[in-house]
């Protein structure tokens, strides 16, 4: 492929952000597209904010410059807003709509903004797609497939330089056999959610 594609994935530790980024990377290698994926390990994983980047094509490193994301894929609404610096008017911002409340809010020290406020802000910065991935994952048969729903949404958003089947095949290669149908469903729900 020619040119660069920059994808920023965000969420909270434990939501499968790193796994999702890794899957996109593996799919790229499968079709011979140059790829770099940056990950977060260690201290940052204990319930903290997680941010990964995937860069495809004519790139020499994993970090996405400001204002250069083609897509932001967020597993949590406030986390999409946290990394808004990566976006430009054309950026596709795809976010799950279910918040995860940090303990700083539970202890009463800080506040979680109103969801509608978050969405209206996100709309200012790019093209917003809201996905009820928690519900869709449950419908597919398991909450853990939430990140697969989100990957389906990304595949449906026409951002990747390869067909959605490549991504799906890569996902299925990486899950136990008995969960193949659930993951297929979850991925399909994601595609449909973005192209209703």
């Amino acid at each position, binding site marked *: 492929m020619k040119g660069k594609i920059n994808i920023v994935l965000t969420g909270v530790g434990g939501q499968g952000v790193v796994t999702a980024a890794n899957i996109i*990377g593996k799919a790229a290698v499968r079709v011979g597209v140059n790829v770099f994926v940056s990950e977060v390990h260690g201290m*940052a994983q204990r319930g903290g904010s997680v941010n990964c980047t995937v860069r495809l094509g004519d790139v020499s*490193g*994993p*970090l996405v*410059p400001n204002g250069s994301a083609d897509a932001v894929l967020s597993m949590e609404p406030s986390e999409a807003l946290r990394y808004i610096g990566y976006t430009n008017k054309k950026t596709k911002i795809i976010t799950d709509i279910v918040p995860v409340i940090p303990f700083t809010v539970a202890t*009463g020290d800080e506040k979680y903004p109103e969801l509608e406020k978050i969405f209206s802000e996100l709309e200012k910065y790019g093209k917003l797609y809201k996905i009820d991935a928690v519900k869709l994952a449950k419908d597919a048969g398991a909450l853990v497939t939430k990140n697969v729903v989100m990957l389906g949404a990304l595949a449906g958003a026409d951002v990747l330089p390869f067909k959605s089947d490549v991504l799906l095949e890569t996902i299925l290669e990486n899950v136990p056999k008995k969960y193949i149908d659930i993951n297929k469903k979850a991925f399909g729900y994601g595609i449909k959610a973005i192209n209703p």
Partner: protein
Amino acid sequence: MQIIKDKPGEKTLLLGNEAITRGALEAGVDVATTYPGTPSSEIADTFSAIAKYFTKQNKDPGFYFEYSINEKVALEVAGAAAISGLRALTCMKHVGLNVASDTFMTYMYIGCRGGHVIVTADDPSCHSSQNEQDNRYYALFGGAPMLEPSTPNEAKEMTRIGFEISEKLQSPILLRTTTRLNHVRGSIQLKKMQKPRRIGNFEKNPMWVTTPDVARARHPELLKMLKAAEEISENSEFNKILNIGKPFDWGIVTSGVSFNYVKEVAEDLKLDIRILKLGMSNPLPKKMCENFIKSCKNIIIVEELEPILENQFKVIAYELGVKVKFYGKSSGHFSRLFEYNPDIVAEAFSKIFKVKNPYIAAKTSDVKLPSRPPALCPGCPHRATYYAAKKAQPKDVIYPTDIGCYTLGRAKPLEMADLLLCMGSNAGTACGLAVATDKKIISFMGDSTFFHSGIPPVVNAVHHNHDVVITILDNRTTAMTGHQPHPGTDFDGMGRPAKKINVEDVCKGCGVEHIEVVDPNNIKETTEAFKRALNFKGAAVVVSKSPCILLENRDKIKRGEKILVYQIDQEKCRKCKTCIGRFGCPALYFGEDGSVLIDEAQCNGCGNCATICPFGAIHVKEEK
């Protein structure tokens, strides 16, 4: 297993750390050692996973691997193997090399016979570290040849070829990485796996015994070795010049991950420039550097952290007597702080070349977002230990702490981490605080930290009769870095049975006269134990034993046991906030109507919130 596929030419996606392991396997590594530490841990974890894979099938993995007790011992184990002619790799985080530095500095004098690659994983921006020291100084300090990869594939190649360089020079070499290499995935081109040598041969020689006369004889040899290394550096495939556009008299010198940002920004800004990429950055290829300097009137040096290349280039230019303008840290264009990225490099280049920065951040939103710092997991036994210690003595206590998950006890509402320097510092600083203040001292360290460097300060506390309570949080694993085994576990890094060493037995052997062994999930008894320890005049130890909840629950699921979930009886709850405001489990939160709720998805079922609730309002809901 993908990582051990012997399919030369095939491409696969690997983490930078996995790529280093693969490079070592392609070089036929015999012995690999480590003490885990972010961002280096996955190098060793990959060796461990491969070894376990073979151990399970009763097969020999072809190499020996161990999670050593600390970095110093790790370097000594692997060093002795390399001295005996085997190929060895030792990996550690940057501050680990401080621990191993005593060994390292003299090891450089005597060298080795088999190749030895020492990986130091630096952490600019302190993502998971207590400082951002630049370990390239160790290459200069100890006189070690050094390689600095920019991408995962290069990391694999440099590891593989690093063994050859090391063997040629009969000297250990450093492979210096940074977090943005260790934790980046990229496409790797596999090469053939070499067969290990397996049995070393220690040739007795008085020159291996570094008495003063031997040291005086070896130091000139070290300098000779560096001269030979310079020749290798001059001809190394890792040192190269790249032209972008139509270069004239502007040049950039860079190494490591900074190269990636330099290349991208230079292309995006359409600069006409020559880039000198230094992959073997110690010793510098002096002739190559001289020629580069002579070909330029202006040179930009781009390197994270310390001005190591910058200062060396200025010396070379001075000795050449040529006039060249340098742009870097001392000119104020680049910072000595934190890791770089394309934006930082673009900002500096746009100032130097007086052009517009091509990367513009979207305006930051005015909506204030809650911070999301890492926290002790729901159900973490450390929280119960902290809670009990505070109950035993609520005021006038100083809490020296240590490196591990429990450092997170610093956060509200516990706020039980007052002083931290490095691995093992809790008990040493506890002694000093007992001398210097009239406060009670309760220090905290994990079990792996205890074995790593926590034992000597315990002995110190006993011998000098310091009035301290030293707490050892024994969760039977090295949790923060990814659950590696340590001398307190009954298996080793190769998945084989190992002799388990009890923390309390060691303390007893160290002469500790007051030892309390508790299960922190019994908060009442743990509180009483802390009270007794505080009343003891002298050094007392509390060993708080409960497995990491993540491992405990994983084992429960394996055994087919259910994990309990707790809920709050809203009629009994008086909103006293003991559970949220004092205990601080992140699974508890206030609902929109102000009622206290438990997030079932997060609850790990420890039940400690039910124990501490003064109104008996929390009980088991169901099995998860």
